[in-house]
């Protein structure tokens, strides 16, 4: 068993708010520099940069959790991760269908570009990615779990786009695999302030939009190897796998 450092919430240049320096190559280099073993690629409502980053990261021995940061109808941000390409592609179709047909204005919101490993632009997403999809929090959760994915409501301590800001409190029977806190608090402190979340494992991620933010905070997993299945076990606290709080 090993202690592995994971930052599971990283945006790329494809997110309108992601810095232009957040290319797949730069993200992988910075993650390696910061000593991360596992990174999560979570652009707003798109998974299109996952495949390339997965390939580039593998060359540096970094494992990639492939997914997205989805915005539910209630404007709650939630991390979604999938184990294989098939599930990831099905989730991309779900996003494409349910994201409203509102066109991005790059001057106002930022560029939404997909680049290759030489940083050439290969695709520009026309639809504004920071909008909410037309599915509810529960419908989104059910779809993600239907694909055997992980569903992790994001930055719950933030005053924008969190469960608390949008829905007031944890919904009854919420089926979350974990809850994320942002860098402005720690899981330990948050658990003290909010005893109602004690049944959920807490992870802490950077929500990096700039290369300098990657790995600024991270979660340590005590697992056998960097893999989706091992991280799932650690979130459940099964078979000796666990989250080590900083």
């Amino acid at each position, binding site marked *: 068993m090993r202690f592995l450092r994971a930052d599971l919430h990283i945006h790329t240049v494809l997110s309108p708010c992601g810095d232009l320096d957040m290319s797949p190559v730069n993200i992988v280099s910075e993650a390696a520099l910061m000593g991360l073993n596992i990174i999560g690629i979570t652009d707003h409502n798109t998974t299109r940069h996952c495949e390339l980053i997965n390939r580039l990261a593998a060359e540096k021995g970094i494992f990639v959790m492939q997914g997205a940061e989805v915005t539910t109808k209630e404007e709650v941000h939630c991390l979604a991760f999938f184990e294989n390409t098939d599930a990831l592609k099905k989730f991309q179709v779900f996003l494409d269908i349910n994201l409203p047909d509102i066109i991005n204005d790059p001057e106002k919101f930022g560029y939404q570009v997909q680049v290759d490993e030489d940083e050439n632009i290969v695709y520009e997403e026309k639809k504004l990615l920071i909008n909410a999809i037309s599915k*509810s929090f*529960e419908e989104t959760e059910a779809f993600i779990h239907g694909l055997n994915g992980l569903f992790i409501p994001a930055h719950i301590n933030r005053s924008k786009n969190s469960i*608390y*800001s949008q829905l*007031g*409190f944890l*919904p*009854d029977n919420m089926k979350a695999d974990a809850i994320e806190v942002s860098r402005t608090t720690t899981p330990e402190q948050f658990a003290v302030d909010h005893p109602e979340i004690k049944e959920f494992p807490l992870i802490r991620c950077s929500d990096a939009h700039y290369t300098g933010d990657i790995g600024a905070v991270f979660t340590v997993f005590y697992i056998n190897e960097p893999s989706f299945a091992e991280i799932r076990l650690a979130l459940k606290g099964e078979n000796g796998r666990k989250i080590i709080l900083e």
Partner: protein
Amino acid sequence: MKITDIITALDLKVISGHNGLTNDITGGYVSDLLSDVMGNAKEGQIWITLQTHQNIIAVASLKDISAIIIVKGFVPEADTIEKSNIENIPVLSTELDTFNVTGRLFELLKKE
């Protein structure tokens, strides 16, 4: 004013929570952020929102809100309807948007 009077005057559809229809309305509150409603809505008000999530019933119950009007013909989730019936908090529906239904309700309550 009774909820039933408002239903008639604004041509609202009753979706659920029929047992709460005899509640009195003391005023209204308009917001789509549940944390804001928890902080600012007052007992006996009717709440106008586009939110359809089950947590609206818990918020309404917490604040003793008399009824909820959901705008633009949005349909609440099944668990919202179920909780509305348990809590006896009527969920009402209008095809109007928030601006228009609020304006009409304001005129109606002003006459009292």
